């Protein structure tokens, strides 16, 4: 079917229907994106916190056999190695 057999009114209605479909699809995508963003931000925060805890634990372990370990732990704000 060619468009020149349709009236302008019919073509406008088709456009409006197509545009509405596109906007509804966009709204769904936007909502999904917002939800995804919240989930990823929360997960990233947990991952960053867990990484910090892991690295600090490794550093503390690396100091246990060093004669200057306690002093260095204090200097590096890692608390006492005996805690």
């Amino acid at each position, binding site marked *: 079917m060619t468009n020149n057999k349709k009236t302008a009114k019919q073509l406008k209605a088709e456009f409006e229907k197509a545009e509405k479909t596109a906007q509804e699809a966009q709204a769904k995508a936007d909502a999904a994106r917002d939800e995804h963003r919240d989930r990823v931000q929360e997960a990233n925060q947990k991952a960053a916190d867990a990484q910090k805890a*892991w690295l600090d634990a490794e550093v503390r372990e690396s100091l246990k056999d*060093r004669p200057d370990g306690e002093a260095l732990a204090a200097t590096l704000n890692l608390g006492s190695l005996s805690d």
Partner: protein
Amino acid sequence: MAVPKWYANGLLNVANGAVDLDAATIKLILITSTYTPNQAVHDFRDDLGANEASGGTGYPAGGFTLTNSLSVSSLTLNWDGADISQAITGGPLAFRYGVFYKARGGAASADELIGYVDFGAQSITDATLNITLTNQLTITAS
């Protein structure tokens, strides 16, 4: 801190949505001075070569996981990462560059580079590594 620079493809990926600076898992990897940044060409983490910093205890292979936020001030879009403060023992941990990339959890060839910062030659032994990330990568409207 020195002003970070965009990789051209990093900017493209931000613009087309492949990298969501507000939500992507972004890491800061420390790179030695043997790497030469190519802003126009380098696009994925494998372009960094075998130049990741190492030495001592406290630096995680692959870099630090960041928490990120976007904000607008006047005409400038700012991307911030949380500051890093990490004790390093032993060493030296020697590095010059910090490179921001999207970490996908797989091959380095899949991780998009975003930008980098030149810290100058750094060497840390039995000390705290402090990196302040305030208003890092920016885009300014004109």
